[in-house]
């Protein structure tokens, strides 16, 4: 009897140990996978509002537009400060952004329509560029230039816009448009694609109309 109990106890012990080892191994792997995911997934779900306009708010409205100086496609530096006295639309875009492609023809038309009243657009590309690799940088610039030519973007195009992420509130989504009045103040911000009428209304606001 005693011997049977002893054997039963030993068997139970061994089974319990195996069960524990298996469960602990499963948990360990599961948690390791979760840690990897936690380190990697930085995504933020951005849903449409009922009106189709993203519910995003910029802190820059009614504040001075953050100054910057970026290269254009020819390598020449272009500063926002040099447009003081003009109304400026700082439009962040990228070649891979489909909504940007929709609004670009509107921007081209509106720029031509209001240029005579002291209005300019600075199209700031946020496409990745590799400054450490001259060959790659050349190819990336060429790709942007190809897009610019295809879309007939005849206003100044600046590159490396991702460097303005911090002053311009993260640039988490594209397109983003900041309407700057003649004194350098941001009078309107559009996050995402809205309509040509909205853009025109904000251009008028920047022009002081």
């Amino acid at each position: 009897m005693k011997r049977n109990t002893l054997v039963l106890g030993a068997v139970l012990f061994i089974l319990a140990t195996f069960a524990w080892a298996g469960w602990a191994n499963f948990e360990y792997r599961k948690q390791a996978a979760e840690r990897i995911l936690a380190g990697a997934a930085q995504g933020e779900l951005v849903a449409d509002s009922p009106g189709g306009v993203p519910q995003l708010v910029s802190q820059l409205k009614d504040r001075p537009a953050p100054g910057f100086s970026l290269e254009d496609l020819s390598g020449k530096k272009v500063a926002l400060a040099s447009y003081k006295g003009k109304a400026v639309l700082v439009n962040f875009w990228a070649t891979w952004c489909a909504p940007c492609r929709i609004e670009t023809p509107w921007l081209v038309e509106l720029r031509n329509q209001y240029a005579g009243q002291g209005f300019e657009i600075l199209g700031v590309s946020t496409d990745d560029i590799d400054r450490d690799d001259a060959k790659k940088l050349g190819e990336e610039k060429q790709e942007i230039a190809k897009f610019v030519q295809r879309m007939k973007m005849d206003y100044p195009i600046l590159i490396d816009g991702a460097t303005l992420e911090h002053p311009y509130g993260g640039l988490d989504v594209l397109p983003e448009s900041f309407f700057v009045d003649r004194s350098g103040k941001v009078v309107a911000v559009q996050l995402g694609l809205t309509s040509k009428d909205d853009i025109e209304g904000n251009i008028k606001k920047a022009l002081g109309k």
Partner: protein
Amino acid sequence: MNKGTGIRDQGSGKTPERGLWYLTAAVLMLSGCRLMAQAPARSIVKPAEVDYLYPEQVSVPAGQASKVVLHFRVGEGLHINSHAPHEEFLIPTTFSIPESSGVKLEEINYPAGSDLTLPFDPTNKLSVYTGEFALDTRIVAAKGDHLVEAKLRYQACNNSICLPPKTVTVAIDVVGR
């Protein structure tokens, strides 16, 4: 004296059993404590544009090409470009497995995208994945356990905004048996 002998006799008869039971109980308690210590208090993973659904673990014959279907879900209201977007500037969805992982991606078949037309631009059609989609792969695993950190690269948008392109890690526990 007799009492003492009795106690000693009784003890000598039950001590090994008790020891075993105590040991078993101790092992179970320790395992319980270890599990509690490992259990994540709360998930710190933010909602993603694309979630990997399953499988978390696959077991395949070592050294042989084996079919594994990987399931993903695109966040509600969003779409990502398919592997073959219609426009040249758009970023295709791609999946890869690092060479050093002990698992080789022998073949991958991406699903065809569905056509999507954006408001304001009815003439252009995008090729996209929305909702759930699956990648049909054939992998070859070396013998042993491999916690594979595969990569999914995609670029997500909704009808009016786009999010920057992203490469996320897809964790799959692959057992080559």
